[in-house]
C-alpha cells in the first residue's frame, strides 16, 4: 500500500460512482419517492414479490402490536428455526437469526443462547422503531430460515452469503457476493467487515475480492481461496434481480439474493440506496455501465430475459480485462 489517497483523475478514469453523483443523478432521478416504501418496508417487498411470483423466503407471521408479544411463545412453538427482522430496518440492523432450540432456549446463528424474554425485548424494540429509518413505529417479520447452498461451504462465517446485484432501469449492471466473517459478526455488510467478492456479470465467477476496502485473496476465517468461486445458475439469479424492476418500477436498486439449497434463488430484500463498495470488489466503476444504459434507447417491450441477455453480453468480462481492469483505454 504505497499510496494512501487516490486522485480525482484516477477515480474518473475508473468511472467510479461517488455518493453525491449516485444520490443526485441516479437515485433522485430514477427512483420515485412514492415507490420508496415498497423497498424500505420488507413486508411490502415480500407481499409484492409474492404477487409477481418472485420467490422469497416464506413468511411465517407478523407481529404488529406490543400486546401480541406477550403470547408470542405459542406462535413460536412449532418453528424450530427462523429469521426475525424489522420490516423497516436498514443495513442488516435488528436481524435475529435463530437456528434451533436447546430446551427452552433459542440458539442464535452465532451459537449464543437466548431466552424468550430476550426475544420479547428484541421484538418490543423493533415495534418501537429502534431499527427503523426515521425511528417510526415498525412491525416484526418472522420468516423461514434459508438453508444455504452447499456451493458456499467454507466461504462464510455463520451468516448467509448473499448476492448483491445493482439493477439500473431493469438491466443488471454489477454484481458481488457478500460473505460474512468473524469481523462482521455474521453480518453481510461490507462496512462491518464482510468480504465482498466481485462477480463477472456474464458468468458469475469471481473477479476479485475485498475486505475493509482492501483487496484480499483468501477468506479471512476459513482460508478458502476466493478466486475459485463460481455461482451456478447465474442467469436465473440475474433474471430474478431484473424482475425486481418490473415489480417496483424503481430505476436504480440493489437486489439482495440468497441461494436456498432446496428452493433456489430467493429475493431477500431490495435497497433503494445501494452502497458503492461494490465498485471496489469489482475493481471498476459503475459510471460507464450506468451511462451506457442511460443513453441507450430503451426498448420498453424488452422483458427481463432480454434485458439479462443484453447485460450479460454487453458487460461481459473478457479474461484479460477481468484480471487487469485498470489498463488504459
Amino acid at each position, binding site marked *: *500500500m*504505497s*499510496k*494512501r*489517497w*487516490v*486522485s*480525482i483523475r*484516477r*477515480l474518473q478514469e*475508473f468511472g*467510479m460512482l*461517488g*455518493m*453525491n*453523483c449516485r444520490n*443526485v*443523478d441516479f437515485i433522485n432521478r430514477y427512483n420515485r419517492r412514492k415507490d420508496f416504501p415498497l423497498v424500505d418496508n420488507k413486508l411490502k417487498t415480500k407481499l409484492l414479490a409474492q404477487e409477481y411470483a418472485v420467490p422469497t423466503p416464506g413468511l411465517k407471521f407478523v407481529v404488529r402490536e*406490543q400486546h401480541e408479544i406477550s403470547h408470542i411463545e405459542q406462535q413460536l412453538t412449532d418453528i424450530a428455526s427462523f429469521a426475525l427482522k424489522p420490516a423497516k430496518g436498514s443495513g442488516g*440492523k435488528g436481524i435475529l437469526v435463530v437456528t434451533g432450540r436447546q430446551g427452552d432456549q433459542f440458539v442464535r446463528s452465532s451459537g449464543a443462547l437466548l431466552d424468550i*424474554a430476550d426475544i*420479547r*425485548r428484541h421484538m*418490543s*424494540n423493533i415495534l*418501537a*422503531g*429502534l431499527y427503523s429509518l426515521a425511528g417510526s413505529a415498525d412491525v416484526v417479520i418472522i420468516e423461514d430460515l434459508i438453508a444455504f447452498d452447499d456451493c458456499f461451504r467454507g466461504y462464510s462465517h455463520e451468516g448467509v452469503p448473499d448476492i448483491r446485484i445493482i439493477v439500473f432501469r431493469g438491466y443488471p449492471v454489477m454484481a458481488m457476493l457478500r460473505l460474512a466473517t468473524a469481523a462482521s459478526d455474521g453480518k453481510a455488510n461490507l462496512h*462491518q467487515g464482510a468480504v465482498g467478492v466481485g462477480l463477472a456479470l456474464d458468468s458469475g465467477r469471481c473477479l*476479485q475480492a*475485498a475486505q475493509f*476496502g*482492501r*483487496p484480499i485473496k483468501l477468506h479471512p476465517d476459513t482460508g478458502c481461496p476466493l478466486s475459485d468461486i463460481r455461482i451456478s445458475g447465474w442467469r436465473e439469479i440475474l433474471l430474478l434481480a431484473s424482475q425486481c424492476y418490473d415489480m417496483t418500477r424503481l430505476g436504480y436498486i440493489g437486489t439482495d439474493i440468497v441461494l436456498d439449497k432446496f428452493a433456489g434463488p430467493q429475493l431477500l430484500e431490495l435497497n433503494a440506496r445501494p452502497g*458503492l463498495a461494490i*465498485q*471496489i470488489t469489482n*475493481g471498476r466503476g459503475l459510471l460507464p455501465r450506468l451511462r451506457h444504459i442511460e443513453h441507450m434507447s430503451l426498448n420498453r417491450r424488452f422483458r427481463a430475459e432480454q434485458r439479462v441477455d443484453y447485460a450479460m453480453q454487453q458487460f461481459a468480462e473478457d479474461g484479460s480485462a477481468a484480471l487487469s*481492469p*485498470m489498463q488504459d483505454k
Partner: protein
Amino acid sequence: MNQKWTFHAILILMALIGIGTAVVRHLSAGTPFLPGQEKSVWLVEARVDFDVTGGPISASLSLPDAQPPGFDLFDEQAASPGYGFTVLGEGSNRRAEWTKREAEGEQSLYYSAQLVESDSHGVSPAGAVFPSREYNNYWENAQELAAKEVLDLAREKSSTPLSLTRELIKLLNNPSSQNAGLLRSDTLSQAELLIHFLSRADIPARYAMGLYLEDARRRQILTPMVEIYTEQEWLLVNPKTGDVGVPSNLLLWHRGGVSVLDVSGGENSRVHFSMIRQTVPAAQLAQITKSDSIFSRLGVQRLPIEEQSMFKLLLLLPLGAAVVVFMRVIIGLKTSGTFMPVLIALAFLQTSLVEGLISFVLIVAAGLALRGYLSRLNLLLVSRIAALIVLVIFMISAFSIIGYQLGYSAGMAITFFPMIIIAWTIERMSILWEEDGPSEVLTQGGGSLLVAVIAYLLMQMPLFVHLTFNFPELNLVLLASILAMGQYTGYKLSELWRFRAMDDL
C-alpha cells in the same frame, strides 16, 4: 442540460440579489461592511406589564439620566399604542409617563433607549438633597442592639464614610456573624439594610438601580445599588461586594427619587429589560431613528429589542447549516444526526468553546454509561428516551452544582444544551456502540463535534455576526451556495480515501 442551466442562472441571480441589496443598503444607509469601523451602541428596552383594574391608567417609570456614567443617551422612544406619553423631570428625576382613559386586560408598554458608550464619567450634579431620616423605629429591640454593635464595630475599623461603608458590607456579608444574621431578612434587601445603617451613621446615602448590560439578554431586572454622598459627590457602592464606582457594563437606570415604577389603575405591574449591542456607526444611528428609508424600515433593527436578540442568533443559523452541508457533501464527514452539530454550535455560542466542549463530552459520556444500565431494564423505546431525558437533566443539575461549589461558573453553562437532542444523541450513540463498536461512535461523535466546532468558530466571528445581522439579505448567498452544493455530483474528499484500493488492484 437546459434545466441545469436555468437552475444555475437562478442561483447566480439569487446570490447577486443578495450582494446587490447589501451594497445598496451600504450606500444608502451607510452600514459598513466591516464590524471594526463602528461604535458600539446599546439598545435597551424596558417593558412594563400590568393588568388593568379599571379607571384611568397612569404608569410612570423612572428613566436614566441624559448622561448616565459611562454612557451617552442618544435617543429614546416609547411604543405603546393608544397611550399618551411624556417624559417629565430633569436630570436624575426623569420619568416616563404613560396615560390612558381606559383599557382592558393585560397591558405592555415599551420604552427604548439607545446609549452610546462614552468615557464621560457622568458625575451627577452634586445632589444637595439629603435623605430624610426614617430609621428610628425600624428595628425591634434585639435587632436594634445588633445593629448598634455592628455599627460600632465598623466605626472602629474605619476612618472615612467610604471605608465605613466597606466595613459595614464586610460585616453584613460575614455568614458566621450572629448580628448580621439577625438583621438580614427576606423582606429587606442588602441595599436597603445598608441604607438604614448609613443613615444611622449620618452618612447621606440613597438608593440606585443599575442594569447590567450583556449582549442579547432578555427579561433582565434591575440590580439594587447604593450611592453615598462623600467629598462633594455621589459614589456608587455595590451593596453585595463593596466595590466602589460604576462598572463599565452597568447602566445606572434609577438614582434617588421615589420609585422605579408607579402604576395607578393597574395591578401586578412589573418591568423587565431586554438589551442588545449593536455595532452601528453613530452617524447611521441618527439615520436609523429619523430617516424613513426603505432599508431602515426593513432592517431587523426595527423590531422590538426582545425579538432582535433572537434574530441575532436565528440569522446565524444559515451559516451553521451551510457548514454542515459543506462538511457532509464535499468533505464527506459522518455526523450523528444531520443538524445536531448546528444546535451544539449554538449552545457553544452561549457558553464558550472549551467549557462547552468539556461539558458536552462529560454529559454524553455519563449518559452513555447510564444508558448501558437502562438497556438491561428491558424498557420500551419511548420510555427509555424519556428516562434518559430525566437523567440528563439530573446530571446537568449535578454538574452545575458541583461546578459551582468548586468555583467554576462554567458548570451552569451546560443548561444551554438542548436536552432532548442530547438524550437522542446518547440513545443513537449507544445503539451505534452496540452494533458497530466504539470506533464508529468515536468517528461519528468526533465528526459531529468537529463540524460543531467549525460552525461555532465561524458563527462567533465578529465579521459574520455583523454581516448576518446587519445585512440579512446576504443569507441569500448562503442559500444559493447550499442549493449549489445540493447539485454537486463530484467526489467527496472522503471518497478519495475510501476508494484508495482502486489504485492497487
